[in-house]
């Protein structure tokens, strides 16, 4: 009973968050005086486009009929969204959904890979540091972690491009594929895609792993010093079992929620990352849209990123109880 009401609450909250974001984007475009559509209308009228044509264009951009009441517009907007219609991009003359559909998999690929690598490195390295707490290895690693965590990923990205792209000419400086390679199920495509993703992923991983390494180190040290590990040793359990079932499991658990939410946050970080690497994912298009005041595209990507973040938190909330027996109803461990 409690459990059900918990899941229900989480679901309602997730849906509510998305709904509020949608409503705010709707309001921002339409209700603000001198808002984007007003500007566009003015611009088109000044260019001598006939008013009826202007209305038709705006309508197609945002599924809006200007002569309707706000409520009717809102209704139309929402139903359009629910059927997957995000309007038409000013810039690309294409439906926003088509642009996102093309770009999103690439961004997800880069960000999920980055986040996965961050956590694999954090768990392995942090655990080793904890086992050898106080050693030179631990000391050097801690300092390096803090140093890398202090570097913004876009700065490291630029450095990587200069070194590996321009000076050593080892890796491509941008784009998601070489011009000659066509997407498909070929080895060439896969290798080329990885080749182009290495530098963006590296800059995310190197700058993002530091804090997680330190977090894992702290967790593992705490678990290593716990009574249950001492008792497990006295009970004669093998070192292997103690490191896997006792130390690793209990040290990784608290990082699970952070892992999922980091994927969500990194999607937001793609805006700058993909601009630096000219990597046409959703972040890259978001940047273009911002520059060109391409509001439909901007709002579409904004919505996608928001929904991804909300989903990440939602999934973290729902699944934490499955992996940590202490949290059956999740009351003490909410992601946000």
């Amino acid at each position, binding site marked *: 009973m409690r459990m059900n009401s918990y899941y229900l609450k989480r679901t309602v909250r997730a849906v509510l968050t998305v709904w509020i974001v949608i409503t705010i984007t709707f309001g921002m475009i339409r209700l603000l005086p001198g808002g984007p559509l007003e500007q566009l209308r003015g611009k088109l009228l000044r260019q001598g486009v006939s008013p009826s044509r202007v209305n038709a264009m705006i309508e197609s951009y945002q599924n809006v009929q200007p002569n309707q009441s706000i409520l009717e517009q809102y209704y139309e907007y929402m139903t359009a969204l629910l059927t997957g219609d995000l309007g038409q991009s000013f810039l690309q003359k294409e439906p926003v959904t088509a642009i996102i559909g093309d770009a999103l998999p690439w961004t997800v690929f880069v960000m999920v890979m980055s986040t996965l690598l961050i956590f694999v490195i954090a768990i392995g390295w942090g655990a080793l540091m904890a086992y050898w707490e106080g050693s030179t290895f631990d000391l050097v690693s801690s300092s390096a972690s803090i140093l890398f965590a202090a570097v913004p990923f876009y700065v490291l990205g630029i450095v990587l491009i200069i070194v590996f792209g321009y000076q050593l000419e080892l890796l491509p400086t941008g784009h998601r594929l070489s011009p000659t390679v066509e997407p498909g199920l070929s080895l060439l495509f896969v290798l080329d895609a990885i080749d182009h993703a290495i530098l963006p992923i590296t800059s995310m991983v190197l700058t993002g792993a530091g804090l997680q390494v330190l977090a894992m180190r702290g967790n593992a040290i705490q678990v290593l010093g*716990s*009574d*249950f590990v*001492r*008792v*497990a*040793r*006295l*009970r*004669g*359990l*093998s070192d292997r*079992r103690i490191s896997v*079932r*006792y130390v690793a*499991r*209990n040290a990784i*658990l608290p990082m699970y929620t952070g892992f999922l939410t980091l994927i969500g946050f990194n999607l937001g970080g793609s805006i700058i990352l993909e601009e630096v690497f000219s990597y046409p994912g959703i972040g890259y298009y978001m940047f273009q849209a911002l520059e060109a005041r391409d509001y439909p595209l901007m709002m579409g990507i904004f919505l996608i990123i928001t929904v991804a973040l909300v989903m990440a938190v939602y999934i973290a909330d729902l699944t934490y109880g499955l992996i*940590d*027996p*202490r949290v059956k109803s999740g009351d003490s461990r909410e992601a946000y």
Partner: protein
Amino acid sequence: MSISSDVLNEPQDRDAIIRMDDVSVTYDSGDSYVLDDVSLAIERNEIIGIVGESGSGKSMLASSLLDAVPDPGQLSGSVEYRPVQDQNVEVLALEDSELRALRWEEISMVFQGAMSSFNPTMKIKEHFIETLEAHNAPVETGLNRAHELLEDLYLKPGRVLGSYPHELSGGMQQRALIALSLVLEPDVLVMDEPTAALDLLMQQSILLLLRELREKYDLTMVFITHDLPLVASLADRLAVMYAFELVELGPASEVINTPTHPYTRALLNATPNLNAPLSEMRPVKGKSPAPINVPSGCSYHPRCPLDTEECRTNHPPADPVTPEHTAACFHWEEARTEISLNYAETGTNDGDWR
């Protein structure tokens, strides 16, 4: 309760199951002692209570019985384990694999805070199974024994085994931990403040259960606590620790009714009991020493009302008060008259203090 007289009436050379000789634990490459030259024979099938304030070295004594002193402590001396009367195992000389076999199979240990002794992400049953497997013991029979032990401890075996640690109350976890410590049929059970986190009622009921377990499984128990009245009703013998040393050792009733060492007398006067009004309670004056700053001679002399020049320079040896009762004090005879107790001193084994 009366002392099980068979233990007391045995001849001098009693049947010791563990014999500690000059056992010391030092840190900082020998600069600070947390256990100082302790010699103690633990007798087969007795319950011995080791009493001391926190920081008196009593937990170190417990850990050294299993050669499990926390790093980087240095353990020296000799701990002899005698599984049968004339077989000797020097615990401190064992190889890692032999030590693994000794711990839990022969000598088992329950720490304070059962709550933190179980892996929070594993069910209780898994703890039993992995322990049995680690010692190559048959899991089936082991689990049957676990069921029996849990029942002996008035727990529902099915429910407890199927639970995660956090789903059990503190008292239930404590009892499950005792069952886990006995699943490999050890001869000796060492308990370090096993009931400290529990309420008074639960403490008492666990002590009762321990007595039953001792009878049923022929256990030798070492019960370590700061709580003198608690262990007084359980133990056959009491050992009092002060500043990392044993200062008094004897049959429980003698130590309670005719305490001999000035520290023991002060400790008893600081302890609530039925025969003394609360206003008579006096805390032990002064502070017990830190490991780096143990006073020379008798380590109790800065706090002792009877200290003399001899106390400040010489270390008092354990002096027999009666054949079974020793006190490490030069002036224990004076102590009995000079330091009055706030309850009636009876001099018999049957005082109503308890």
